[in-house]
C-alpha cells in the first residue's frame, strides 16, 4: 500500500487542495517548491542544527519502568514534552519558518488550539525576527491562558476568534481569511497535517524526525529498530504522523491512533472524527469530518483544546480507511485519569492531549515481548488549571 501523496496531494481517496482562487498562487508556489527547498542540503543543515541546539533534539526515548511492570510489557515514552516550548509542534514551526524565509515571506500567521502551536510559532518568529499573528478561539484563550501570555511575551499578536465554536476550527478559518487578505507577503504556518496540499505532506515530513529518532534509539537499546506498537493521540494528527512516518511501510508495526471522545462517542459532545465523521471537505482538503447530513461542520468537544477539532488530516483518513492504523478513543475522564497516573508513577505531567494516547494502554492486550512506543507529544504545564479542578482536594 502507498502512504505518500500523489501529485495532486491525495492519499488514496483523501487530500487535494480545495482552495479559493485567491490562495492559488501561494499554494501553487508551495506545491512547486517545498520538496526542493526541504531537500536542499543548506536547508537541511540549518534545520538540523536548530533542531539540535534550539529545540534540544534528539528527545529521549524513556523506558517507563512502572508502566511496563503494570502491563507486563515494554513501554517506552518518546519525550516530545522535552522539546523547547513543551511539545512536538516546534519541529514543524522551525521547518516552516525557514521555508517561509526562502520563499521571501515577511509576515507569519498561525492558528492555535491548545496554544502549543501558537507558542511554537511565536517562538520561531521571535528567533527569526518576523512579525507573527496567531488566531485563537476565545474558548481556548480562556482554558489555555498561560500560553496566551507566553505568545504575547514572545511578541506575537494574539487575535481572539469569536465565531462558531470559538475553538480550533474557527481559529483556522480566520487564519485562512487573513492569508487570503495578505497573500503576497504572508506565510501561513499550519500547525497540523491538515489544510490543502502540500501542507499535510510538508508537516508530516517535518514531524517525521520523531519516528526517525525512535528507530535509531530502539536499535541502540534493543538491537531492533522496529517496535511492535506505536501509539499517538490525534487532533489534526501531526504528532501521530511524525511518530508513524518511518513505520508506515513496516506492516509488522501496529500503528494506534487515539482520538478524543469528549463526554463519550454517543454523547453529542465528542471529537472522535473517525467514529463520528464522514467524507467531506474542511480547510482545503478532503478527509473525514464531523458534519450534519446537510454538510454543515459540527462543533466538536474535548477537554483538551489541541484535540477539539472536527476533522483529521487526510493521511489519517487514509490510514483509517485502509485499516493500516487502528483508531481508539479516550474520553475526557479517561484522559484525566491517565494523566494523573503518569504523573504519580513516572514523575511526568503530560499534556491532556498526550494523556489520550496513554489511555490506550488500558484498551489493548499486551505480551511480555511487545515493544510499545507512546508519543508523549507535550507537557502538562499549560493544563494545570484544568488538572487542579479535577484534583481530589
Amino acid at each position, binding site marked *: 500500500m502507498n502512504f505518500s501523496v500523489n501529485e495532486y496531494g491525495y492519499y488514496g481517496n483523501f487530500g487535494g487542495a480545495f*482552495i479559493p482562487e*485567491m490562495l492559488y498562487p501561494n499554494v501553487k508556489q508551495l506545491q512547486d517548491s517545498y520538496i526542493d527547498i526541504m531537500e536542499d542540503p543548506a536547508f537541511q543543515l540549518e534545520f538540523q542544527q536548530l533542531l539540535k541546539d534550539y529545540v534540544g533534539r534528539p528527545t529521549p526515548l524513556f523506558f517507563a519502568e512502572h508502566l511496563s511492570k503494570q502491563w507486563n510489557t515494554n513501554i517506552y515514552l518518546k519525550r516530545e514534552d522535552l522539546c523547547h516550548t513543551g511539545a512536538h509542534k516546534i519541529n514543524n514551526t522551525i521547518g516552516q519558518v525557514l521555508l517561509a524565509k526562502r520563499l521571501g515571506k515577511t509576515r507569519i500567521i498561525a492558528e492555535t488550539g491548545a496554544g502549543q502551536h501558537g507558542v511554537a510559532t511565536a517562538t520561531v518568529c521571535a528567533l527569526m525576527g518576523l512579525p507573527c499573528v496567531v488566531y485563537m478561539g476565545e474558548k481556548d484563550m480562556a482554558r489555555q491562558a498561560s500560553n496566551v501570555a507566553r505568545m504575547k511575551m514572545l511578541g506575537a499578536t494574539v487575535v481572539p476568534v469569536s465565531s462558531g465554536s470559538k475553538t480550533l476550527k474557527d481559529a483556522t478559518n480566520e487564519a485562512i*481569511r487573513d492569508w487570503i487578505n495578505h497573500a503576497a507577503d504572508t506565510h501561513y504556518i499550519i500547525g497540523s497535517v491538515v489544510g490543502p496540499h502540500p501542507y499535510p505532506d510538508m508537516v508530516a515530513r517535518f514531524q517525521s524526525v520523531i519516528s526517525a529518532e525512535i528507530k535509531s534509539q530502539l536499535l541502540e537499546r534493543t538491537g531492533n529498530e522496529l517496535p511492535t506498537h506505536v501509539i499517538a493521540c490525534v487532533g489534526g494528527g501531526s504528532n501521530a504522523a511524525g511518530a508513524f512516518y518511518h513505520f508506515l511501510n513496516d506492516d509488522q508495526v501496529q500503528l494506534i491512533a487515539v482520538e478524543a471522545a469528549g463526554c463519550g462517542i454517543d454523547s453529542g459532545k465528542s471529537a472522535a472524527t473517525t467514529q463520528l465523521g464522514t467524507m467531506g*471537505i474542511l480547510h*482545503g482538503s478532503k478527509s473525514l469530518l464531523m458534519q450534519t447530513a446537510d*454538510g*454543515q461542520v459540527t462543533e466538536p468537544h474535548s477537554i483538551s483544546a489541541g484535540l477539539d477539532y472536527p476533522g483529521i488530516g487526510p493521511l489519517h483518513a487514509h490510514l483509517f480507511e485502509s485499516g493500516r492504523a487502528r483508531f481508539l478513543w479516550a474520553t475526557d475522564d479517561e484522559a484525566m485519569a491517565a494523566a494523573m497516573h503518569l504523573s504519580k508513577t513516572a514523575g511526568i505531567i503530560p499534556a491532556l492531549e498526550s494523556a489520550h494516547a496513554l489511555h490506550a494502554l488500558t484498551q489493548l492486550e499486551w505480551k511480555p515481548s511487545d515493544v510499545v512506543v507512546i508519543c508523549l507529544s507535550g507537557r502538562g504545564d499549560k493544563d494545570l488549571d484544568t488538572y487542579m479542578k479535577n484534583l481530589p482536594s
Partner: protein
Amino acid sequence: MQNKLTHLFEQHHRPILNMYCTAGYPELNSTGEVMKALQAHGADIIELGMPYSDPLADGPVIQFSNSIALQNGMSIAVLLEQLLQINPSMHIPVILMGYLNPILQFGMEKFCREASAAGVTGLIIPDLPMHEFENEYQDMFLQYGLCFIFLISPETSEARIRKIDTLGSGFIYAVSSSATTGQAIDMQQQEAYLARLKSLQLRNPILVGFGIKDHAGFSKISSYVQGAIIGSAYILALRSGGDISTITKEFVNTIREKAELPKTN
C-alpha cells in the same frame, strides 16, 4: 449553450448588476421576496448564496448572514424547494454560489438535476479546484445545462485566466482584490487591473465583485467590463431591518443612478 445568462450578455444595453443575497436571510422564507424585489427594481442577475458553517472566502458581513440563514433552517434541499416555487415568476437569470462540502453531501448530480429543474442557470463554487472540475464535474454541469463560473483574482496569471476562459461559461467572476468579501477596495489600484482584464479580450464576459458598495464603484468598473457584483453592502442594507422591497428599491436605485454604458464589450 444558449441560456438566460448568454442571452443577457448578448442583449444588454446597460451595465450588468449582479446582486448577491444569502438564501434564507433575513428570514427563512424571505428568499422569494428578495428575488422578486431585486428583479422588479433593476437587478440583472440574482446570485443566491447557499449558507455554510465555514465560509472561508467571506468577510464578517456574509459570515453573519450565513449563520443567521443556517439558524433559520436554510439548507440546499429547502432552497431548491423555494426556487421551484418562485421559478415561474423569475425572468432574469438566477445563479447559486456555495462551498463544495454541503453540495457533496447533498450529492452533486442530484444537486445539478434539481437546480436545473428549478430554473438555475449557473454555479459558483469557489473552493472547487480547476483540476477536480475538469476530472469530475465538467460533463455533469454541461449535461444539466449549468454554466460554471470561475473566480479569478489580480494575482491570477494570464495563462491561467485563458485556461479558465476556455473552461468556464456564463461569465468570469473577477475578484476585485486578493481579499475576502466586503473589504474596502482601492479604486486607484483597480484601474490597472480593470484595464488589464479588458485588454485580454476574453471569450466570456467579466463581472467584478468583492467590496463594491456604491454608484461610483459600480460605474467605474462598468466602464471597463460588463458589470459588477454587489453582496456585502446589500446584506448590510437588509440587516438594518424594514421592508425588503423598499430597501431593495432604494439600494438598486442608488447603485444604478447615472451608471454609464460600457464603452465597449
